[in-house]
């Protein structure tokens, strides 16, 4: 372990940041000083102070508590959206890459079409179509992420398909499913892990953007993008704390996953490790 730590200090740092966020999300009920949804108009719009470290919003809710609880929704959106993109994208990529032929041609044109749309517009439209709720935001972000995984997987499968160990397996009569599962898939997990980590960062950003436009979570649930949007109208009164707390939280979360993703890429992808 210490050897690993010495060789990959960035993975340790990134991992620690992510772990911190996950712990904050899990233990939100224990560590946040107030109920994040309890309105108390008597203490509305108070600036940061000893009672409320990050101040209160216009309903008198504690900004710090909302920011801590916000980690729950943001992280689960990140994980689930990426999970959707990963499962659908990888299956499609494996199928297309291994089966080839007409299926490959049709599937990849579909992927091209999906890829042609500006991701955010697509996500906005899908969320609008399904209705503005957090589950639908997850689906929309997941769908937008599918092409990435399909292309990545398919490319890897194509390059792997004619490798010796695969042709060898084929000659001894292994079923296509077995070949994919036992020989190809294990060889593409590294780039997928790297991509998934980076995608979580993207998904957190995307959820924040959707919530910012009013298409994400439902009130009074605390989420970062939503709270920034909710608090931003008080900026002109120089009551900045309502937006700054959740804004920094997004920044830290996205930073953590980007940092970890980069470190993983350097460690797991031997081709790139040399270069940077």
């Amino acid at each position, binding site marked *: 372990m210490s050897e690993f730590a010495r060789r990959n200090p960035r993975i340790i740092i990134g991992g620690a940041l992510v772990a911190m966020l996950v712990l904050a999300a899990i233990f939100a009920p224990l560590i946040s000083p107030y109920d994040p949804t309890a309105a108390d108009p008597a203490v509305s719009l108070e600036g940061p102070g000893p009672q409320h470290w990050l101040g209160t919003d216009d309903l008198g809710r504690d900004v710090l508590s909302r920011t801590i609880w916000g980690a729950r929704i943001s992280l689960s959106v990140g994980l689930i959206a990426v999970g959707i993109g990963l499962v659908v994208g990888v299956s499609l990529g494996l199928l297309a890459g291994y089966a080839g032929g007409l299926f490959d041609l049709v599937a990849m044109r579909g992927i091209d079409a*999906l890829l042609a*749309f500006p991701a955010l*517009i697509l996500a906005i439209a899908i969320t*609008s179509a399904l*209705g503005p709720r957090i589950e639908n935001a997850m689906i929309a972000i997941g769908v937008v992420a599918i092409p990435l995984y399909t292309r990545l997987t398919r490319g890897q499968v194509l390059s792997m398909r004619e490798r010796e160990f695969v042709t060898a397996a084929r000659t001894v009569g292994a079923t296509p499913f077995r070949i994919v599962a036992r020989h190809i898939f294990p060889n593409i997990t590294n780039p997928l892990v790297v991509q998934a980590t980076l995608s979580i960062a993207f998904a957190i950003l995307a959820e*924040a953007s959707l919530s910012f436009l009013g298409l994400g979570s439902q009130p009074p649930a605390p989420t970062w993008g939503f709270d920034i949007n909710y608090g931003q109208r008080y900026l002109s009164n120089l009551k900045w704390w309502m937006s700054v707390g959740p804004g920094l939280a997004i*920044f830290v979360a996205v930073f953590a996953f*980007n940092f970890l993703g980069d470190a993983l890429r350097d460690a797991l992808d031997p081709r790139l490790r040399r*270069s940077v």
Partner: protein
Amino acid sequence: MGTYIIRRLVLMVPVAFLVSVIAFALLRLTPGDPVIVYAGEERDPATLDALRQEFGLDQPLPAQYVTWVTRAIRFDFGRSIRTRQPVAEAILERFPATLELGGIALVLSIAVGLLIGTLSALRRNSPLDLAASGFTLAGVSLPNFFLGLVLILVFGLAVRVFPPGGYTALKDDVADNLRHLVLPAVTLATASMAVNLRQVRSSLLDVLGQEYMRTARAKGLREAVVVARHALKNALIPVVTIFGLQVGAILEGAVITEQVFSWPGVGKLAVDSIAGRDYPVVQAIVLLSALSFMFTTLVVDVLYGVLDPRISFGRRSA
């Protein structure tokens, strides 16, 4: 290369068809009757029916699609339900604002990315390099709407250096236009600036470590010449792809940035029109941006080949 381009163009036809179907269907599947949204507080049923008829919304969906596509091919996108402005005119009217914002942001992000990226690769681990790496990570992690709000707070409201939002046309007042441009352009440029910087730095480092660079240096060429003639050119190859992708990213970022700064561009028109269920406008914007993205990708791929003769177009999969 000619055959490669033709092959790619042929493959684009079915994709364009799919894209048009998705563009058409996206909003139709969304609850919300454009005519009722349009009518607002005036909800006389007979008037609503007359409006539906006027905009062909009483026709079956496939018929509406066919009408729309056949007109769209001739660049006729109909009229906006909300404003009755011809859609093409509405988009063209807002295009200069988006082009200005996106263009400046793109130039800013590429210029800074190239300059700082090169410097930090050459002076690895110098304070500049460390600062640049820090900026890189921060830049891609900062949501642009949040960055925009912080800039508004600091430079628009606390210290009133720049207006907190709004727009003045370039032709009306150049100075005022630029004053309004600064904050949104910086907001929009930051993320892609970070990506570009990282890419320039890492591909330059990659190239600098290569065999032929050592050879060039061993031949006694001056460092500046080595960098300019050999390293940068080779390092640019992956960078061009990233720049190409940045065009898309910036257009996308413009959607939010325009919203935050009340910048009257195409992105803002799109978001407002989605909310207002203005089918003709949304369909046209989505279709046009998807098509232009497809062409950008093609151009980038071709450029890639021009810069790197090692790539043979015949074998690359689309």
